[in-house]
């Protein structure tokens, strides 16, 4: 098992190299650089611009900048943000909790809703639960996330039931801890729904098909013949087998949630990584962009690794390492 994990982790290296190189080339091709807005201000001395250019390394060709950055990364130094003058790792750590919180609540929403619904739908194919959930799932899949986000903001503004964006209210600092918790929960509802609904629908469709598949298997007939109750058959025998393919996609799902949150966070004014990364891209704050790309890639690989491990845990037939 250990060698397997190590082998998988070493694939991170060439992938990160390739992706960061690509990002670096693309950013150097993009017009302007971090100092462009500074250059357009009338009372900034050219000598200061030259000095800043030198201290940022922007006066060198891109491959030299890249080599320097790589050298620093080897010492686990991901550079610092030119905008905020804070190490990139610190900046990402500052914003990540909000995004991770949102990712977890949406994943939870997706799984807690999708799993029972899919099993119930597949238990009686063509029944009313099945038809209703299918219709709802198609509907949810057909709406793009950003549109759903806009819709949610509009709804919040019209009804006043939910806050329009953000993670906490203006008077958050003055609330009691219990009220603070409720405040965050209140703010999380809409973004969770927006980010989670697509996940519910997708998971539901895949899982329903798997459950239907497993239901045809001979061991299910055997279980039923043994006299097990339908509930035990469905949730212990069918579900456990049907979950396998889903477990192997959870890694992608997690990385996908992060990229989806970039959009949702920006539309819904949510204070997470997505907004930080978007602003860094717009300002061409190079190292923040690179740092976030590294985080996203690592998450994808580590997420996949975790889902493979989960698969091994849930399915005794799967063994790695040989």
């Amino acid at each position, binding site marked *: 098992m250990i060698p397997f994990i190590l082998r998988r982790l070493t694939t991170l290296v060439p992938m990160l190299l390739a992706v960061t190189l690509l990002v670096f080339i693309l950013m150097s091709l*993009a*017009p*302007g*650089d971090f100092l*462009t*807005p*500074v*250059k*357009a*201000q*009338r*009372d*900034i*001395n*050219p*000598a*200061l*611009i030259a*000095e*800043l250019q030198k*201290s940022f390394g922007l006066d060198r060709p891109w491959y030299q900048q890249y080599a320097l950055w790589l050298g620093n990364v080897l010492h686990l130094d991901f550079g610092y943000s030119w*905008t*905020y*003058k*804070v190490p990139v790792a*610190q*900046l990402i750590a*500052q*914003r990540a909790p909000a995004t991770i919180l949102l990712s977890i609540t949406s994943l939870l929403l997706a799984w807690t*809703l999708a799993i029972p619904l899919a099993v119930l739908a597949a238990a009686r194919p063509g029944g009313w639960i099945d038809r209703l959930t299918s219709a709802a799932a198609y509907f949810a899949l057909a709406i793009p996330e950003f549109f759903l986000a806009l819709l949610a903001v509009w709804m919040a*503004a019209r009804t006043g*039931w*939910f806050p329009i*964006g*953000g*993670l*906490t*209210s*203006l*008077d*958050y*600092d*003055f*609330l009691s801890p219990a*009220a603070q918790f*409720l*405040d965050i*929960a*209140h703010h999380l*509802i809409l973004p969770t*729904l927006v980010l989670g609904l697509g996940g519910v629908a997708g998971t539901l469709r895949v899982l329903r098909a798997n459950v239907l598949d497993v239901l045809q298997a001979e061991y299910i007939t055997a279980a039923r013949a043994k006299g097990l109750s339908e509930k035990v058959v469905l949730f212990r025998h069918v579900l456990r087998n049907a979950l396998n393919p889903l477990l192997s996609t959870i890694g992608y799902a997690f990385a996908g949630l992060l990229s989806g949150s970039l959009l949702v966070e*920006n539309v819904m*004014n949510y*204070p*997470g990584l997505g*907004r*930080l990364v978007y*602003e860094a891209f717009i300002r*061409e704050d190079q190292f923040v962009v690179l740092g976030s790309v590294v985080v996203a890639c690592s998450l994808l690989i580590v997420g996949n690794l975790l889902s493979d491990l989960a698969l091994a845990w849930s399915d005794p037939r799967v063994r790695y390492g040989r």
Partner: protein
Amino acid sequence: MAQPVFPIALCALLLLSACSPPPKVSRQTHPLPAGVDIARSEIGRSGGVFIDSSPGEPSTFNPLVSEDATSGGFIGLFLDSLVHNNAVTQEVEPGLAARWDIAPDNRTFTFHLRPGVLWSDGHPFSADDVLFTFQAIYDPRFPNRAAFDLSVDGQKFKVEKIDDLTVRLTTPQIYAPFLETVGGVGLLPKHELEPAFRDGTLLKSWNVSVAQKEPQRLLATGAFRLRSYQPAERIVFEANPHYWRADAQGVRLPYVDFLVTKLVKDANASTLAFATGQTDAEGLSPDNVAWIDRYASRYGFSVFNRGPSPNTGFIWFNQNPGHDTAGKPFVTPYKLAWFTDRRFRQAISHGIDRQGLVRGVLFGRGQPLWGPETPANKKWYNPNVTQYPYDPARSRALLAEAGFQIGPDQKLHDRQGNLVEFTLNSNQENQLRVNMATAFKENMRDLGITVNLSFLDFGTLVGKIQDSYDYEAGMLGLTGGGDPAGGISVFSSKGRLHQWYPNQKTPATPWEARIDQLMSDQLHTLDYPTRKKYFDEVQKIMSDETPFIYLVTANAYVGIKDRWKNIRIPPLGSLVWNLDELWTPLLTP
């Protein structure tokens, strides 16, 4: 799904908590400093929370790092300076220095600090802090903007401590904007920042991460001190218990307990927050005024017209005679001949229907602009510049005089028969500018001139203007206002933003040489009437020669909730000039 019940129950709970009165604040009471400044404004009542929003995130709380207006604005709330530039009267007023003397040589300024002023942690403020600040600014280890503003021709000012409450600054030569520049320098606490200065990490101090984790380390001399900072959410300032101003009854300012700024992602979100009653003050652009005014009575706010904004908008032609490294001229030679002909530029200027731009693009909320300063800059604006009212006949006459003729194709041609056509570059992000460029194209078509519009990303546009020079005409804006010294990079022929032909070694034309002389002369006298005379002439030459063809200036508006008293709205700069004097009889919004 079981979802709906949950949020409704939650909403009820939250409504309960939201309706609770704002927290009772017991302010720390400290004796007023000996050098207390008594405000002359109406006497108010302490308490209340002032809420506004900012469409940008502060990038730092360290004045040595700050390059953007957003960060600068937040820093100005807690770090005070020796003197203040009163944004309403445009005069210099006492700040942490109660008074100052200017020696007869006009180069030596002695500042007398207010006795008894304390930092927000209770440590005394003294001349050592002033010396430390200048030492930090001038240290080559910490490249910063102030170091360049606080030197003349690369020479630093001499800073001496006379005693604990007296500091003497000497400029190497007479430097006109000295007091205004010193007014902008937030003084740093030596006892807090000296370790970072010693080990060279000063530029990393007071960054956003420190502000989030240890807000109390950002020591204040200003009206407010930082209470908390949540990135991308909000900044909360609270009244500084050691602030050095009080009202006539001896009640310490500021009146408000808290200043909460909502951080939103763009100007639209900020405007929307105000229009729905969430914030107390907001700067409004002319195209938003009409619809926002409809909500004024519902949310109890009023919209004030601040008059013309300090923002200028203009078109210019590339007059750079140089060529790129491959020997290709930046501008096709026959076109360069048009662009450098004053009559051509004046004809274009007469051909622009500025009243139409004000009506069509700014909804009547603006006025034509003829020179580099707008009336917002009361102290320096010259109203007697040459004007170019809309007059196509006059345009045609000027063009004919310069040898242009309408050909059989109804298009304008120059003496050699070249079709008069050029490409106007502007940036796509600014919708008002895009609309103006379109209107300009129509105006030029009436003169037989073909204008192609090219809307670029801002970065690409700046690259063309400042680095590659391969363009024909541009349209941009600059924020004017303030002291003429701020415009040197635009007006001086050596300047970086002398956009029609930047970074000249020697002035290309006699009038540019004259402007260079005037800009240098105005910098080296402290006498306001003399400086005004020089700068008036600069404005006159700019309008006569029209290297920049000025278009229009929009009015600026500000909306403020009616519950606030003692409001003073400056024509330029921040929305409210005297935040420390604001008070409200209604504590709950």
